[in-house]
């Protein structure tokens, strides 16, 4: 059986890749994709801890279900926001979204 530290290392690597995407992408949909990667890494950590630390109650897996719920809602609202912005300023790039500035 693989030790817990390797699952945590995999979660750390995937989380850092998602963070890099959030920091460097211009496309707002690309930023949302990177956020989903980060949430996936968090889910992996929660499931690994629920397997190794507290196996009887499965609290980590229940938390992971809630994380997926919030991720689904976030993706729906975020993509609706991007579509609404695209209708008004005809771009999906985050550095073009400055219409709140005066």
């Amino acid at each position, binding site marked *: 059986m693989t030790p817990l530290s390797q699952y945590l290392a995999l979660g*750390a690597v995937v989380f850092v890749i998602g963070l890099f995407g959030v*920091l460097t992408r211009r496309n707002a949909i*690309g930023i949302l994709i990177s956020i989903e990667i980060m949430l996936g890494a968090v889910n992996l950590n929660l499931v690994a801890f629920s397997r190794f630390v507290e*196996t009887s109650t499965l*609290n980590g897996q229940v938390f992971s279900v809630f994380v*997926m*719920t919030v*991720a689904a809602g976030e993706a*729906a609202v975020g993509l609706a926001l991007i579509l*609404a912005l695209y209708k008004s300023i005809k771009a999906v790039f985050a550095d073009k979204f400055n219409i709140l500035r005066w």
Partner: protein
Amino acid sequence: MNWSELLSAPLAFKMLAAAAVVFAIGAVALKNVFHCALSLAAMFFALSGVFVLLDADFLAVVQILVYVGAIVVLMIFAIVLTERITSASVRQTNYLVIPGVLLCIALLAGLVSVIRASSWPSLESGPQQDTIKIIGRQLLSTHVEAFEVASVLLLAALVGAVFLGKEITRK
């Protein structure tokens, strides 16, 4: 954790971990956003394989259903509704690539050093069974308030998405 342990990890975990990392890099680094969304779907398939290795069968299935079946499809819809043909040649990254790489490498080094320095509990029990039963009981007993709040949150997200996606008529 040391590197000889990494070499002795089961082959299935190594392959799934390598696939997850490769597809995650593809999802953040490919130029075409459509390819990024497909790479994201492949990464979630690999991660749900890791969930199966962790005896979380219910979550593996839910992950494929929710992420690959709903979120990635939603993203592909948004991409084909917003992209223009020429946008594959538009620059996709901002000016933060080199500071971003440095920051991410620093964060990864910190996380890995903490993970290696700590002593983690090892697995003592056998394979986990009845995960669906336990998760259902927990959702409706211990975490019932969070369950109800999550349903209200989903309703609010539904109404908000419909409102934002509606055609706004200006007077």
